[in-house]
């Protein structure tokens, strides 16, 4: 088993599990955090395509298993976002933490809107639903701004502890 995707998946899974618990406590207050962008941002920016995509597909499956969406929705959305970010990564200073935060925010916005368009078809009160989603999106983006710098550093450190050379890895194209 390759350490690169395993460590990346394990750290992302940890964030996902924490997010599930945070949402449990937020439920009575009518708020919800979605951080799909943060779950997929690190792997396409810092790992090769194969290892990064495996980690992204696994986290997509983990999210799909818990949420009431057609199984594979997050998998396909996350994979598409991964590929787009991987394709664009050479044009930007991808090793800068601040760039990682910006990518996570943009990816989260795109995934949130994509998921909303998929799931809101046939909603009995789409006006109220969109108002709620807009507020949830706002909380989610704030959450990412706060958590992303720590999470990116955490993933980098975890990979370093697993003796993964991130400089070498970022040169790998496949």
């Amino acid at each position, binding site marked *: 088993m390759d350490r690169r995707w395993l460590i990346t998946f394990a750290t992302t899974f940890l964030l996902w599990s924490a997010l599930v618990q945070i949402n449990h406590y937020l439920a009575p207050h009518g708020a919800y955090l979605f951080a799909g962008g943060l779950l997929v941002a690190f792997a396409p920016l810092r790992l090769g395509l194969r290892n990064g995509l495996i980690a992204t597909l696994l986290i997509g499956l983990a999210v799909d298993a818990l949420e009431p969406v057609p199984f594979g929705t997050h998998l396909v959305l996350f994979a598409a976002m991964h590929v787009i970010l991987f394709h664009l990564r050479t044009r930007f200073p991808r090793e800068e933490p601040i760039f990682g935060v910006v990518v996570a925010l943009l990816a989260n916005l795109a995934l949130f809107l994509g998921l909303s368009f998929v799931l809101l078809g046939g909603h009995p009160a789409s006006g109220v639903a969109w*108002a709620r989603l807009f507020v949830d999106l706002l909380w989610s983006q704030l959450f990412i701004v706060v958590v992303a710098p720590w999470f990116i550093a955490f993933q980098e450190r975890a990979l370093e502890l697993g003796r993964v050379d991130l400089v070498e890895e970022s040169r790998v194209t496949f």
Partner: protein
Amino acid sequence: MPSKRFDRARPFIALGAVVLAWILLPVVVKSFLQVSFFELQAPIQTTASYARDLQEYWAERTHSKNDLIEAGRELRHVYAGYEFQAQQTEALRAEISRLEQLLRLPSNPHYRYEPARVARRDFAGWWQQLVIRKGADFGIPAGAPVIYAGGVVGRVREVHAYTAVVDLVTSPSVRLAANIEEDSRPVSYQGGLNPALRPARGIVEYVPPDFFASAKNPKRLVTSGLGGVFPPGLTIGYITQLDASTDGLFKSGEVSLDPRLSELAEVTVLVPLQSE
């Protein structure tokens, strides 16, 4: 040059391969993956839930003896009231049974009450669901109604080894046949009004035009028993607004739901006895 172009297209070829593989993957494999990934995460959810219970236990241990004596005294009063009500219920059940035999009516479905702790709340704008800490290990079937002290909670959607997923009555995917209290005409209830930072509401449709309801004069909405999932008479919520629908034949409006729904820590699953 062509190899450089291929290198650039490689991520998209990989995505195409992933999507194609996912489409062609047999349903059995997808189901296996879904169950595996759910069960992989179930221990985390239940452990967190047990940790919360422990936290609650230690918080309650800080109460003084006087508090406990006072609480015990209050409980004795409540218990006496319930004991009297239980006797009345028994008498009414016997009466119903006698009338069913006399009129040769089919008897109402009977249920086993299975209390379960809530392991996880997941209330998004897209969906509203709970995960409870009982599943196939306690014989909970998919589709079983779930209730609490305030009325209807929802319906079991998925059953796993030792957890089950409940679609909440506030979820847009939940639609119930209902009655307005003391009226036998059926109306339709659907969840889906989940505003941010405020309690959830539901939508009522196909209300006969002779009904009037407002926030000052709300009407209780109860389960009708039609469809056979929920027993009749359970509270769904209170109709606080009714307006004529576009066709003019019926009215539709909003249902105010109990705010306790968003804070549930324990629910009861009604397991139909016929299915056992």
